[in-house]
């Protein structure tokens, strides 16, 4: 819900009358006190954020230059071997498969979930009776934990399980395949599960964005003789632009770090063939489970760099006007 409030208020804040000061305190003392408050109130957040979010990334860069079993201090310096060496990540076909799988998930999520959710949102953007119940139901997949979703679909998609028997009873028995076992199919099964889980999220965002389009605009277009489709195309959709762009951003970051659903729903054997690996599952398999900490951290750095570059480029060229004041500097 956007209002024009802050700009007005910010203007007023600049022009507000001098505050009555308690007598007897010097200007210097007041300034000192203000800084104590600033440091005392933001300090804990800054420390926690720095130590547990940013510092680990810096350590990852350092560790990734070593071969290291995780005990003691890393000593076996390998330079960039973990990245580009003979046994480096970029030489491992399984890692390249993981990169490709992340790309499939990223592009697949955008081109399937986006239009699907948008179409449904446009058709449902009216106050029909039962709308709140509907909203509750479509949001359920998003609220369930990834683990629950993964196990649920794993059971449904078992060979000769529920999905297969439903397909057979619909006369679509020929479609039945090794959803979770066939290495050439499993990544598409994963994409299907992720689509099921996250389309509702896009839908709710779009419906929220549509609720902010003033009805006067569409009514005016209708009075001017625009068809329903023309109204959607030329009036409603342009006003939804910022919501769509922010959804794309969130979906991108989410796709790059997919872990839980893949980890739970596809078996380690299928994963280790590269059939359903993502960068994150590959990283945990190698770093945490195989104790190749240097190598695992190199994968972490690759994941970080890809996400960060994508995010910054997207933010710089696409998102700027949408989040002005949030991710960019705001004058105040």
């Amino acid at each position, binding site marked *: *819900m*956007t*209002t024009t409030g802050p700009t007005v*208020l910010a203007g*007023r804040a600049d022009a*507000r009358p001098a505050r*009555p000061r308690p007598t007897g305190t010097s200007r210097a003392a007041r300034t000192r006190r203000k800084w104590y*408050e600033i440091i005392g109130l*933001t300090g804990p*957040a*800054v420390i*926690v*954020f720095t130590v*547990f*979010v940013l510092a*680990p990334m810096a*350590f*990852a860069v350092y*560790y990734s230059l070593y071969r290291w079993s995780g005990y003691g201090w890393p000593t076996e310096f390998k330079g960039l071997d973990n990245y580009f060496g003979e046994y480096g990540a970029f030489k491992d076909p399984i890692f390249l498969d993981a990169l490709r799988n992340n790309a499939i998930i990223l592009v697949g999520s955008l081109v399937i979930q986006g239009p699907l959710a948008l179409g449904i949102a446009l058709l449902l953007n*009216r*106050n*029909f*009776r039962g709308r709140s119940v*509907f*909203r*509750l*139901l*479509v*949001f*359920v997949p998003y*609220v*369930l*934990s990834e*683990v*629950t979703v993964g*196990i*649920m679909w*794993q*059971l449904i998609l078992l060979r000769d399980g*529920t999905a297969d028997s439903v397909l057979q009873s619909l006369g679509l028995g020929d479609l039945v395949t090794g959803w979770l076992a066939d290495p050439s199919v499993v990544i598409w099964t994963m994409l299907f599960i992720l689509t099921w889980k996250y389309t509702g*999220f896009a*839908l*709710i*965002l779009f419906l*929220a964005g549509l609720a902010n389009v003033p009805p006067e605009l569409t009514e005016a277009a209708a009075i001017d003789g625009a068809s329903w489709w023309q109204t959607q195309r030329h009036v409603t959709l342009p006003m939804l632009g910022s919501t769509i762009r922010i959804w794309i951003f969130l979906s991108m*970051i989410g796709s790059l770090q997919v*872990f839980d659903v893949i980890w739970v729903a596809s078996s380690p054997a299928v994963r280790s063939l590269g059939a359903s690996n993502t960068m*994150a599952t590959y990283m*945990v398999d190698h770093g945490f489970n195989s104790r190749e*900490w240097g190598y*695992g951290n190199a994968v*972490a750095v690759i994941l*970080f760099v890809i*996400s*960060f570059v994508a995010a910054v480029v997207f933010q710089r060229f696409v998102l700027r006007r949408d989040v002005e004041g*949030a*991710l*960019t*500097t*705001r004058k105040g």
Partner: protein
Amino acid sequence: MVTTTMPQPSQRRPFSWGNPLTYALALAVAAISFAPVIYVILGGFRTTGQIAAEPAALPDPWVWSTYANVIRQSKFWAEVLNSTLIAVGTTLGVVVLGVCAAFVLSRYKFRGREALYTYFTIGLLFPAAAGILPLYLLLRDLDLANSYLGVIIPQVAFQLPITIVILRPFLAAFPAELEDAASIDGADRLGFFWRILLPLSRPALVTVAVLAFVASWNSFLLPLLVLQNESMHTLPLGVQNFSAEHSQDTAGILAFTSLAMMPALLFFSLAERQIVGGLQGAVKG
């Protein structure tokens, strides 16, 4: 640019019954979203034999013992307790640290304020999973591995950026006159924060709290690495353990899974407005 979480005027247009197409579509979408969940819940009332013989059918007869067995497991309740402890701890931490930082970032003027804000928003630009390996090593070296705090503190850290992004514009939107009035009445800035701003910010605080709680309740990767000790496992880990240990007992897995998702579903149906409001706030930045 301002985020408010007040309930939006949903009654802008009068209710209508809509057209049949709208209903057919809404029904289809709702069915696809919800049918698998129903399947899991009903599956818990069947036996593994029933499920194997007839994968897509209603319970016949209804079996209650599978659910009863799960509920009687002390492991299940230990996992509920662990999940609750960690989620409550995370939520408290996020709200306290987040609102303090957002207060300074919205109502103090000082050099470097925007830089500090941008610093926090860096956290939104890359996925949390990227740092998970070095984070684990850090927690191990700090002796926080295998402890609740080892999950709570990093979760607070990950959740801070979005919390500050939601709270800052909300706190900034209160008029300066309010602060001046408090000042005339003798309250200093902290008094104004504590006695006036906090109570007025309840809707926004509830939103960030709900988002943090749900994120913690569902989180998997961090507890998977940090909590090696099975007695500390949370529900998502428990669901995975159960399905791995009882892979032949389909009905049992279904019952365990549906009981594990009940709290999230219940909590969500009570707080749906806040979650959706919070997401809207998040996208509107």
